[in-house]
């Protein structure tokens, strides 16, 4: 009887102490949900990307002892790149009080944007999602630095101009935009149309329906138009087919430029040697020649904690996952330094960190990413930051940066972006905030 009573008492104490223990554990770590697509048709892009995230977060824990001494705890949730599964992941994991989510899908981002201010969770859609949300006055909880699709498209036009001999040489040139027939694929169209009017180039928009496995008719039109340049906004298999079609139609590959979701190793495999010369926009360097990769090998891979094979480090999407994780970490670190925290930042504090992120050259050097990405600064008004794009080229074996950093045509992009922000915010019933009152 005594033994039974003792056991019941012990059980009661354990049950009573459980939430306290959980809360204590939560206080000591920063929980970050990782929306991944390791399965499904987009897995070839999703896996290296997820591995990049895992590796960088692991590196921060192993090398730096966490963010300002607070360790990161990561939990993956499989979305298969499907919006409904992404929203399900969000709803399931928001109870663990994450300071941020990276939806890693434009569709999921659109669904989370209305939820973010209610749940007070930062949505960071790095280089994707809703372009208009870059206006932080209307969308305080959404960030899309280092750049938006519109800025990217304007940087592409500037790159074309630089290759042709100047902006005035664009007049009369023929540019075709081949895009995934989805909100994502269409994002660049308004910017390209505006710039076509301003600079007198002839723009043709050719949609490719999902998934884009058969593009014969599209490329026959391309042959008929005989463009000087092609801009490709594809995704998944559409990119592979487009690159192969371009090569098989004899198009000059160095005059075909993908956006930054159309320039990975997967995209050039099918075309093999024919893909040589194909270019794409990017906001970070490819390759494993940076100090952060050495750190990764030393602190993570040599301890058997790597997420992938060592020889796959430096792949475009692995690097992109690392860059995304780094931006998350630096934003959290900014908040923790500001509020002198040795515990996880509260949601408003984390948001402040994102909004005041100032990633300097010096800081990039400290974390081993000097040269891998440009410094950037986020402000209350500008949630896409002052990021710049570059052009990388496939040389048959690897991607290499072949341009200087290109400043987007901000005087064209920003007014359109602000107008779109008003429109989108009205749909959501948002009110504008005065950034001069933000500290």
């Amino acid at each position, binding site marked *: 009887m005594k033994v039974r009573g003792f056991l019941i008492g012990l059980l009661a104490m354990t049950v009573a102490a459980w939430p306290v223990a959980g809360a204590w554990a939560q206080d000591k770590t920063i929980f970050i949900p990782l929306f991944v697509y*390791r*399965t*499904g*048709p*987009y*897995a*070839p892009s*999703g*896996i*290296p990307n997820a591995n990049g995230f895992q590796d960088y977060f692991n590196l921060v824990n192993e090398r730096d002892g966490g963010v300002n001494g607070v360790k990161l705890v990561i939990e993956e949730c499989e979305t298969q790149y499907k919006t409904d599964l992404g929203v399900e992941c969000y709803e399931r994991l928001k109870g663990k009080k994450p300071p941020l989510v990276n939806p890693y899908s434009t569709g999921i981002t659109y669904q989370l944007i209305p939820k973010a201010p209610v749940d007070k969770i930062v949505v960071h859609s790095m280089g994707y999602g809703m372009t208009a949300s870059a206006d932080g006055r209307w969308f305080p909880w959404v960030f899309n630095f280092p750049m938006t699709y519109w800025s990217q498209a304007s940087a592409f036009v500037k790159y074309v101009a630089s290759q042709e001999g100047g902006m005035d040489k664009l007049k009369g040139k023929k540019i075709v935009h081949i895009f995934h*027939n989805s909100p994502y694929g269409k994002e660049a169209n308004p910017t390209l149309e505006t710039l076509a009017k301003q600079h007198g180039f002839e723009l043709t*928009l*050719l*949609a*490719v*329906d999902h*998934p884009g*496995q*058969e593009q*014969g*008719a*599209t490329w*026959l*039109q391309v*042959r*008929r138009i005989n463009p000087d340049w092609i801009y490709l906004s594809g995704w*998944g*298999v559409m990119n*592979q*087919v487009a690159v*192969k079609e371009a*090569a*098989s*139609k*004899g198009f000059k590959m160095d005059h075909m430029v993908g956006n930054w979701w159309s320039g990975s*190793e*997967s995209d050039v*495999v*099918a*075309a*093999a*040697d*024919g893909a040589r010369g194909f270019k794409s926009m990017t906001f970070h360097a490819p390759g494993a020649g940076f100090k952060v990769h050495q750190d990764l090998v030393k602190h993570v891979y040599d301890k058997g904690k790597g997420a992938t094979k060592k020889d796959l480090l430096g792949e475009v999407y692995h690097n992109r996952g690392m860059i995304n994780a780094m931006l998350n970490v630096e934003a959290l670190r900014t908040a923790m330094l500001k509020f002198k925290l040795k515990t996880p930042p509260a949601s408003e504090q984390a948001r402040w960190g994102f909004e005041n992120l100032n990633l300097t050259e010096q800081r990039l050097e400290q974390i081993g990413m000097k040269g891998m990405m440009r410094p950037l600064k986020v402000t209350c008004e500008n949630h896409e930051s002052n990021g710049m794009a570059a052009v990388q080229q496939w040389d048959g074996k690897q991607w290499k940066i072949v341009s200087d950093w290109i400043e987007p045509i901000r005087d064209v992009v920003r007014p359109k972006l602000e107008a779109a922000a008003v429109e989108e915010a009205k749909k959501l019933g948002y009110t504008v905030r005065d950034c001069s009152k933000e500290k």
Partner: protein
Amino acid sequence: MEFFFDLTVNGLLVGLMYALVAVGFVLIYKATSVINFAQGDLVMFAAYGAAVMLGLGWMPLWAVIPVLATGMVALGFVLERGILRPLIGQPVISVIMVTIGLAFVLQGLAAILWKAGTRELPLPVRVEPYVVGGVFISPINVVAAVTAILSLVAFGLFFTRSRFGIAMRAVADDQQASMTVGINVRRVFALSWAIAGIAAAAGGLIWGNMLGVDTFLALVGLKVFPVVILGGLDSILGAIVGGLIVGLVESIAAGYLDPYVGGGTKDFVPYVLMILVLFVRPHGFFGREIIERV
């Protein structure tokens, strides 16, 4: 006019590539009445097999092809014996759900076995197009067309001249009557899955070369449905004709309508055509009309 010819020729050639996948679907339906939603996944699986074998560099393409075909035949047998046979006599919906499940299993298995990265499937086919009378013809499309036509001839001979082929036709006509005359119906079922495996191997080699090999390749299976419904679910000739029609209609629609409506016509126009054809010929162009006494 040159543009029209371009669209027509390319559409017909792509249509034959669709037919190559559709043939496997028809073979299974013809003998077993099973609607196989996993045909695209079998194509993907075969393509992975070919890409992995070629990637290892242990054997040349001429040796890979028979090994691949044998492997797919074995897979067909295993699937039939392990998954489909226990469902004989069960409601059609159960069988359909199982083939849908099988599709996901094959995708997951491919990702586990060979990882999800895109693989190259190199074939000794030139990349540069042939230019015939101003019309650009992609060499891989020509290979696919020749393969599809040869498949049609081979399967035609098989079904009319071989003992097994005639047995398969008999089973397709009436399973019970076939059993009474001593045909081993279960063996016929297994054989149909095995032959569908060979068709998947051919489709996998061609489509894998064209698109690169990853789990995306399974989506080519989606093209099968308008093709086989137009042509007739149980007709190999119908699969070829359906493929040609779908390829042609897609190409013409994408070439002439998409520029005006901003895209998207290629995907629904074949289905519109399919609905119109079903009004007039509910069993498709070459499908067998089954009249049952009640």
